[in-house]
């Protein structure tokens, strides 16, 4: 599984050279709603989900530890 993921990652990186949006063209990309992470107030939702669900991680929140949750 891990090997497959790493291969996928390598493929993704190799594609990166295909696109180069210039800095002055990034006005839409730089919109606050376009950021590739959860909103800051979503941390509370992520917190209760970590407690109330069996899985966690891959979202910027805790992957385990720091609390008596999973």
């Amino acid at each position, binding site marked *: 599984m891990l090997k497959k*993921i*790493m291969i996928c990652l390598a493929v993704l*990186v190799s594609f990166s050279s295909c696109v*180069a*949006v210039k800095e002055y063209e990034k006005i839409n990309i730089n919109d606050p709603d376009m950021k590739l992470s959860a909103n800051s107030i979503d941390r*509370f939702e992520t917190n209760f989900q970590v407690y109330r669900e*069996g899985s966690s991680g891959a979202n910027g929140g805790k*992957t*385990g530890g720091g609390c008596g949750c999973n």
Partner: protein
Amino acid sequence: MKKALIIFSLLIVTISNAQEKDSTSTYKKRVLETIEVDFLMSYYTQEGKHASVTGGIGDEKLTDLTPTLIIAYPLNSDDILTVDAGISAYSSASSSNLNPFNGDDDDDDDDNIIPPNGVTGSPWVESSGASGGDVWGNVSVNYSHSSDNRNNIWSANVGFATEYDYTSIGFGGGFSKLFNEKNTEVGIKAQVYLDTWSPKYPKEIRAFLDDGENYNSEFFNSVDVLNQAGQIIDKNGTDVWSPFNSTLIKDKGRNSYSVSLSFSQILSKNAQFSVFLDLVQQDGWLSNPMQRVYFGDRDNYYIGNAANIPNYTSPTNIDVFQLADDIERLPDTRFKIPVGARFNYYINEVFVLRTYYRYYFDDWGINSHTASIELPIKFASGKFTFYPTYRYYTQTAADYFAPYEENVSTSIYYTSDYDLSKFNSNQYGVGFKYTDIFAKFKIYKFGLKSVDLKYGYYDRSDGLNSNIFSAGFKFVMD
């Protein structure tokens, strides 16, 4: 895992060498212009009928208030220091039933066994015990450094958290590399949590074991113990209750080690995506010593009103409590792999589409899928944003889960914690954001840059549901 990390590191080095010439490196802008202060808070309420402290049945009512302050301080043009401090003040019907017999729950022997109204506890009634509420406190400090061309970012963090039965020390570090004219970013992060239990056990188990594994404690001297038929047992006889396992926590440590890999890519002027992979190893006491388990292959014993024993699993039972067979027992290691991806698309000046998906699996048998979508809608020239959200989640049960009275004593590991059961959930939300890039509204030297308000409703297929209100206020210093 080591092989995978080596491949990933080589990939980063190769790419960084190939991308040395970057046309954006001529102008150096401060990473953070001024001090930013975020005040965040949430109010959470929950209802349910599968309390894990009372073995998978019982009231799960819970409320939680979490004020949080985040201060980001620019040390110079390249470095930022961020302090994140918050508390979580909660009250929980389930936790209160660590001692359901309406006494206090400190470690002395002054527990009030029989309250004036004669009610002696039930999984459906919140006890007045001290374990029913507490404050979790957390403070963490993060330092980040960006290179002159802003293509390399290093970070390090340290944190501390505490609550009445748990303390945690965390630290970690990360590195991100941007290249391809900042169209591509790869990152690696490592995090360690060294946690320690100050274990609290169900009242009846602690009373029995602390006094030489017999009925001579003050607690048991004060009450009658009933069998399934409602008859008072002879405490010196052979038909008596005792905990199945007299071994409690030996190793109070609980450690988590994680490595996170990330990759993000701008696809066009309007689209970008990212993928994340976490590898998480946990070891130590991974079960919660507060959580009771009742075995289907052992006799049942109670304290309270004999007439209500047949109604034990019904919320109409307000005055009889079943003595636990054991606390939950889970393996002392767990390996988790979540893989997530985000895709955001700028549709036009009004609409933005934000999506997220995660697949998760671990060696306890849990597999899960998470998908969420958010649609920010801007109006008044982007000053206001309304955003509806939806999240779907589904998971399989952990190998060790069984409902109340369905675990068996021949198992090595067992739990009736419904957070580890098979279920799916739907979460609906709406948010409202106000943004003033000029931060005209001032409080002392700080201008209000944005206000973010959000409401979410969470509905789990086992009957648990919750409401969460969140608010965030961002201030910037003049």
